[in-house]
Structures are given as structure tokens and as C-alpha cells.
């Protein structure tokens, strides 16, 4: 019975579905407005699925699974798919537009004012009072003569039909026409931008609200031959891989290109480009070492401190713990920058304090050490927190039993405490490894990958893969999203493999301890 079914609906579900519907009602018209039909389809589908799942009495399991699945699709699957898709294009600075946009923009950029031509005072007018109808230009030239300009060309207007501004000569009223105000002129928007009155060897276009100039294109596009011709020099530019290149072989390329598919070129560049391939394995090795050492040092220090703090006879444990958590409470961004200034060779705190002259961020090994030290400082409180919690979970009776059996404290720690802690902490260590593998912030804020070995500005001594990729993709010719996506995808596979192996290991570990 429908009424019974409704009666069984709990009100939070009804409210939730109501909110979803309200959201759809708000977004769908906006999407329709922009002709984003894929967006409309997605919005409708999501609303329908959510409404069905939450209003149907049978889909109880789905009620818990669907939101997570949708979020997974939106925040994980979609970015991954998008990144992979971008990896097969040349998308980036100079190749952001579509082909037709690029052609239009090249022509628009080529408009020059006709040499020697005088400006016109401009009034825009419509037939009726409605500004949304078709419009014409009333142009007053330097001699005060008025002409009407429309898409067919210029027609003289007798002075008797118009009144003009005594100083500028701008037309104020015209018989039979309705002169638009500045706001109305601006409101014509795209229509005004594309409106041009043809003349003998050019066209008249508006500039600002009340002026017009005679312009001409210096780039002509031949849609049949797909060529662009510079009318001033006569150079012909041919379409080639998302660019217009000079056909005379001079290597000249027009500045605006468009996005095209490039197949596996970006992946190929990783293998063939010397600047990328050369230092790749050096960077990979340091990335692995950095991630591993970061995890090892933070975990080691965190565990040590947790064990010390765990001692029941220690007084003022709370205070110590709070102090130890302090680095965790400070924004990592700020503290990294503070560390960076402390490492300064001549003015930094460290050298002043110890009276040393270590170039902390200038020498290869010193810089690596500095990066690890800062990362240790940033990371140990987290491990301390986790380990403290896990130590509480170690069954006291097991420890007692071991002690009664004559085990030394060290032995108790190794055989009873550690296994429990490790099982709990292992997934976190793997996640921490993954995080540090891509710990862009610490590297970028501390060293920007430097110092650089002689002859390489692409890979510094402290560069990890992600900071190295970042410089490769954005350092040279502006942003190269295609290339960076390709490398990101390769890192994605690498981290995936490492994590997979890691989780497999954990499982084996758990099986051992579970026995």
C-alpha cells in the first residue's frame, strides 16, 4: 500500500531526498543554460538513483553503499580518468583553446587600425525602443558628416535628421531611430564585439562606448586549405600538430595553438628525452630513500617517546605529551618556512647557535639531511600519538605473564608489545610512505629541489619525483599539462605497486601474528 510505504519512511530520509531534489532543481537550469547536456544527464541520474535508493523500502544495503560509491566516482575515478585522458593531449600553455577558437583569436589579434584613417564618434541605435533588436551605427567623421553604418555598408545621413553634441559631434538623436545609452551599448556584448560595418578595404568597429575605428585583418584564414596568410608579409602558415607553422620552412609559428591528441608522445618523452630520462633513476632512488627514511625516523622517534611516556612512574606526563604534540599543532606550511630561514648559512639560527658554517641547504648531503630533519620534526608527533594509543591496547596480563616467565623487559617489548603495535601501525606506515613519496610541500618550501648538480637545472639533489615532475612540466615553456599528466600517471602506477606490495606484506604479517 502506498500510504503504508510512506508511513514507513523515516523523516531524515525524506529530508535528505528533498535536499537532493532541491539541489537538482537549482543546478539543472543553470546547466541547461550552458548547454552542458552531460552535466544535466549526470545531475538527473544522480538524483534519480538517490531518490530510488532512499525511498524504496528494499534497498537497505544500497543506502549505505551508494553515497560512498558516488563520492568515489566524483573524487577518485573522475580525476584519475581525466588525468589519463589529458596525458594523451598537448594541453598546456599555448594549446589551451579549441581549433575554431584559436583560428578566431588569431584573426582577432591581427586587426590593425588602417594607417591614416580618422576615428569616428559613435552612437548605436535601434529601430524600436527595445535594445535587444538589431542595431546600426551612426558615425560622425572628423568633418562632422554623419553616416549610418550597418552590415551592408555606409549610408549618408542628412544633417536635418540628426542632432549632434556641439563639442564632439556625437549623434544624440536621429529621426526614426532610438539612440542607446552607454549601458545599453555595453549590454549588446558579444553582438557588438562581432558587429562590423564593411568598407572598401576594411571594416568599422566600435571601440569603447562612443568611438569607432577603421580596421583591417592582417591574417586571412582559408577554410578550404586550412592555411593562415599574413597579408602584410605574404607568409603562408600551414596547420601542423595544433599550430600554424610557416610553409616557407623558416620555423616561424603563430603564437596561438590549439589542443590536439598526441597519442603516446608524452609517454615517449619520458623515455626518449635526455633531460627527463637522465636524472630519472637518481631522483627515483632519492624519492624512495626520502620516503623510507622519513617513515623510519618519524616512527622510530615517535615510538621511542611513546614508550618513555608510557612509563607509569613518569611525572608530568600530560605536560610532556602536550609539548611533544606542539609541532603537530603548528601549520606545517609556516613551520617549514621557519626551518628554511633557520638553515640560512650566514643569517640562520642554527649556524648562529652552534657557531658553525654549515651550508645546510647548499651542499647535497647537508640539504638531504636538512630535509629529513625538518620532516622528522613535522612528522614524529603523529607517530607518537598513534603509538601512545596502541601501547595502551597491549594487554597488561600478557606482559605480566611474560614477566613471570622470566622474560627481560627488552624481550617483553620485542615479543609482546611490538607485534601488537606493528599490526595496528602498519597500514599507517604504508600510508605515510605513500604520502612522503609525494611530499611536495616540504621539498618545495625548503629547497625547491636544490642544490643542483652542475649542468642540470631539471633535477636537484633533493628533488623527489613529484617536485621534479612539477619543474619539468611547468618550468620550461609555461604549463604543459599533457606531459605532467603522463608523468603523474606513471607515478600513480609506481605508488600503486608499492602500496599493493605493502598491503600484501601486512596481510602476511597479520597471518603470522594471528596464529
Amino acid at each position, binding site marked *: 500500500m502506498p500510504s503504508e510505504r510512506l508511513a514507513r519512511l523515516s523523516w531524515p530520509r525524506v529530508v535528505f531526498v528533498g535536499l537532493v531534489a532541491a539541489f537538482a532543481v537549482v543546478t539543472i537550469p543553470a546547466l541547461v543554460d550552458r548547454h552542458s547536456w552531460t552535466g544535466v544527464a549526470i545531475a538527473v541520474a544522480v538524483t534519480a538513483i538517490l531518490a530510488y535508493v532512499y525511498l524504496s523500502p528494499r534497498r537497505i544495503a544500497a543506502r549505505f553503499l551508494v553515497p560512498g560509491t558516488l563520492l568515489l566516482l566524483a573524487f577518485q575515478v573522475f580525476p584519475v580518468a581525466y588525468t589519463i585522458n589529458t596525458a594523451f593531449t598537448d594541453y598546456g600553455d599555448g594549446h589551451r583553446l579549441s581549433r575554431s577558437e584559436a583560428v578566431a583569436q588569431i584573426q582577432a589579434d591581427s586587426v590593425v587600425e588602417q594607417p591614416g584613417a580618422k576615428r569616428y564618434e559613435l552612437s548605436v541605435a535601434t529601430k524600436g525602443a527595445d535594445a535587444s533588436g538589431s542595431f546600426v551605427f551612426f558615425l560622425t567623421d572628423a568633418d562632422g558628416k554623419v553616416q549610418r553604418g550597418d552590415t551592408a555598408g555606409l549610408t549618408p545621413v542628412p544633417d536635418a535628421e540628426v542632432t549632434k553634441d556641439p563639442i564632439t559631434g556625437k549623434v544624440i538623436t536621429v529621426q526614426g531611430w532610438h539612440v542607446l545609452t552607454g549601458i545599453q551599448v*555595453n549590454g549588446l556584448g558579444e553582438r557588438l564585439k562581432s558587429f562590423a560595418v564593411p568598407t572598401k578595404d576594411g571594416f568599422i568597429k566600435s571601440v569603447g562606448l562612443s568611438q569607432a575605428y577603421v580596421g583591417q585583418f592582417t591574417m586571412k584564414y582559408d577554410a578550404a586549405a586550412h592555411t593562415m596568410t599574413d597579408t602584410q608579409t605574404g607568409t603562408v602558415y600551414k596547420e601542423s600538430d595544433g599550430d600554424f607553422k610557416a610553409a616557407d620552412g623558416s620555423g616561424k609559428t603563430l603564437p596561438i595553438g590549439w589542443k590536439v591528441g598526441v597519442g603516446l608522445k608524452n609517454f615517449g618523452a619520458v623515455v626518449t628525452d635526455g633531460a627527463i630520462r637522465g636524472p630519472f633513476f637518481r631522483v627515483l632512488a632519492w624519492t624512495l630513500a626520502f620516503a623510507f627514511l622519513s617513515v623510519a625516523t618519524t616512527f622510530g622517534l615517535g615510538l621511542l617517546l611513546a614508550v618513555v611516556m608510557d612509563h607509569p612512574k613518569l611525572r608530568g606526563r600530560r605536560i610532556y605529551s602536550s609539548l611533544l604534540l606542539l609541532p603537530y599543532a603548528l601549520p606545517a606550511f609556516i613551520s617549514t618556512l621557519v626551518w628554511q630561514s633557520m638553515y640560512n648559512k650566514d643569517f640562520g639560527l642554527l649556524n648562529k647557535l652552534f657557531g658553525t658554517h654549515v651550508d645546510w641547504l647548499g651542499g647535497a648531503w647537508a640539504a638531504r639531511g636538512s630535509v629529513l630533519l625538518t620532516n622528522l620534526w613535522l612528522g614524529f608527533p603523529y607517530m607518537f600519538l598513534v603509538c601512545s594509543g596502541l601501547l595502551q591496547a597491549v594487554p597488561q596480563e600478557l606482559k605480566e605473564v611474560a614477566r613471570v616467565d622470566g622474560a627481560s623487559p627488552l624481550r617483553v617489548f620485542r615479543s609482546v608489545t611490538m607485534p601488537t603495535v606493528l599490526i595496528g601501525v602498519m597500514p599507517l606506515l604504508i600510508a605515510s610512505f605513500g604520502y612522503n*613519496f609525494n611530499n611536495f610541500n616540504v621539498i618545495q618550501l625548503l629547497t625547491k629541489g636544490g642544490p643542483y648538480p652542475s649542468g642540470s637545472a631539471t633535477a636537484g639533489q633533493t628533488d623527489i619525483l613529484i617536485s621534479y615532475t612539477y619543474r619539468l612540466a611547468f618550468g620550461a615553456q609555461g604549463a604543459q599539462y599533457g606531459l605532467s599528466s603522463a608523468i603523474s600517471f606513471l607515478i600513480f602506477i609506481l605508488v600503486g605497486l608499492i602500496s599493493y606490495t605493502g598491503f600484501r606484506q601486512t596481510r602476511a604479517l597479520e597471518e603470522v601474528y594471528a596464529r
Partner: protein
Amino acid sequence: MVRHRPSLPTVATAALAVAAATLSLAGCSSSSSKPSAASNPSSTGASASSAATPSGSDSSSAPAAASSSSSAAPVRDPNTDLVIWTDAQRAPVLQDFAKSFAASNGISVSVQAVANDLQSAYVTATAAGKGPDIVVGATDWIGNLVQNGTISPLPLTADQKGAFQATALTAVTYNGQVYGVPYATENLALITNTAEAPASPATFEDMVKNGQDAVKAGKASEALSLQISQQGDAYTMQPLLGSAGGFIFGTKADGTYDPSQVGVDSAGAKAFGAQLAKYGEKGANVLKRSIDPNNAVSLFTSGKAPYLVSGPWALEQVRKAGIKYAISPVPGFAGQGPAKPFVGVQAFYVSAKAKNTALAQEFTLNYLTRKDVEEALYKVDPRAPALTEAYNDVSKTDPDIAAFQAAAAHGVVLPQIPAMSAVWGPLGIAEAAIVGGADPNTAMSDAATQIKAAIAKG
């Protein structure tokens, strides 16, 4: 004890999730286009002008004055007729002018501050149709803005063009078209603490000697404050590179830069490298990598260094410090040419996708080109006006502005071509390496090789 055993699919999913998270992280970091952190001179200026900004050359941490300093991408204000985007420092300055323009035209104008990486935010937003009508930025952006189809040429009349200083007009001209309305020029100069050392040294050698004397006399602890940092700073080094006869790009017949002529390994550039080594950490120890954008100005204002090489953005801090100072051109090396700093210009650009092109053109072409407006802009942000008449007025009352302008006499226009983004990184790193003791010839050749390779690829 029964434990939950994760099954193989669970493990695989978990691994995939971790990996996916890293990929999306990678995606995030790549979403901000121009990193050229060590490089972009405009961002150097921007961050230098805010004393407290911790991350020197990276403009990302501009003060929180901006409303849109959140990490979310900026979006144009939908409720006004004309939208202007600018960086956080300039926004309050422009607000008043926008208001007066709005009042006289009966429209509403909004000035939005974009705190993080304005250039790439603008390019991205414009491509998505959410950009402003007008954007304010340095002229070295032009090449990139044009190649992405985000700005349109501005049809200035011959009279309007003639009213600007020649360098300012050259700086906004790209591929023969004028793309922006310039409003202020900026370049490096030498600022002297006259209580510690004599002003206007004739040569670099004299300056170093004066500086070292001040250190010996206990008046200062550093002979010179010239920011280099571990990654190098090709913008601040440019005056000296030019003095030794080096250049970055050669010029074509029409005087514009030619990206196929890279002069980083020219004889002049190598002579410059030799000078760097001479004054570097293994030599006279006057040029130091430990002086960076974070401490360069404060070394001077605290009296620790008698000389500072910096731009008009440092002027406010220097004036506040209450020391007696003098501004003169950066001195060139003895027996070599005069120093050739980059001359950059701050300009207004009209978006190619502007929703209100007519108003935006009206504002830039007919309002910003007025003398009183440029003078008023100077009053709130003391930089040399680009309009000749305004400059003449201002320089009469403000000798600092005239001094900065004089320091640009031998300057070269900051390249607008996109190929310049391939230069900042390698050149800066090479310079820092030489200062640290690397072989000058190898370092400059290596940098040139890398720059040429990057340009060939683009």
C-alpha cells in the same frame, strides 16, 4: 583470537585508493600553472613589497588582505557591470578609481584581489568563461596571455600612444600589437645608506670597496645586499649580466626579442660569470646565496648592509626605516659597460572573453590614460607613471621616482616572449652555482644548452 583478514580484493582496493589519492594530489599541485617560483620578476616585486611575506620569490603567500585568499579558484563577481582582477596589494588602490569611473558612468564596478598566482588563475578562469573583463599585471605576462588567447589588442589612437614613455609603450607591444595600457614602470636601482657609505659609486668595484670599508669600520656587517638565494635570481642579476656584455635574447631587425638567439653562453655572459666567481663566496664573498628575497631589504633597513639592489617596491619599507638614503643606477663593472636592468611595466589588459568589452575599453583607453588618474595611482603606489606628462609632474616633487627612472637609462625591456619562462630557472641556478664556487664557463654553457633545448621543444 580471531582476526579480520583482509581479502585480496580489499588489499587491492586499498592500494588503489592510496595510489589514486597520490594521483589526485599530483593533479592538485599541477593545477597551478606558472611555478617559475624562482623566476617571475613581477612576483618578486609583489612579495618584496610586503615585508612580512615569508616565501620570498613565491608570490603565493601574499598577505591575507584579499577576500579571495582561500585555496578555491577565484570566480568573477557576477553582480557587477565591470570586473577587474588584480593582486592583493593593488586591489585597495584601484578600488577608488573604479568607484569614480563607476559613478561617472552609472554602472557598478568590482575590483577583486587574487592573492595566489594571478596570471594562471586568470588564464584558467578566462578559458572557463569565468574570468574578469580587465586584469592588471606585469608586461612579461603578455606572451603567455596572448598564446592562450586570453587578451585582445587595444586600439589606442596615435595620440594616446604618443603620450606614453617610449619604453612603456615598447613593453606593452607584442607582435606589433599594443595589448595593454601601461600605468607604471619599474626597474632595479642601487639604494645607499648614506650614513654608512658614499652614494652613487661609479663602478661595481668602488661600491664593493666602499661596502667593505663600512664593514671594516664596524658600521655594517655586509658589503652589499643583492638577493641571490639558493636557486639564483636572474632578474636581480640582469643589471650585472648586461654590464659585462651578456644578454639573454638577441633582437630581430625590428628590435623585438628573438628566442632563437640565446646569449646566455655569449662571451659577455661568460665574462659576467667570471665576475660572479670573483665576488662570490669563494672570492671576495660579497655576493652570497644566503641573501635571498626574505632578508635582502631588511639587511639594508636594519643598517647591516650599506647598499641594496632593489626596485620601487622596496621604497615604502626603506622610507619607513627612517634611514638617510640615496638612489642611483646600479653601477657597472670597471672597464665594462653600464648596468642594464630589466625595465618592466605594470599594465591593464582587456580580456578576449570580456563580458563587457565596451565598458572595459572605455575604462582602459579613455579613463586610465588620463594624467590625473595616473598621478593619483602614483600617490597610493609610488612608481614612475608610464604617461610622460604624469611622470614629469611627479618627478618634480619626488626625486626618488626620477632617480629610479634615471637608473633605467641603459635598461632593457623585460622580454614578453613566452620563451623567457625557459630562462629564469636554468640561468638563476647557474648564477647561484657560480656564486657558490662552480666553474663559470661550464655553468653558463650548461644553462644555455638547457635553455635552448627547452625552447626547441616548446
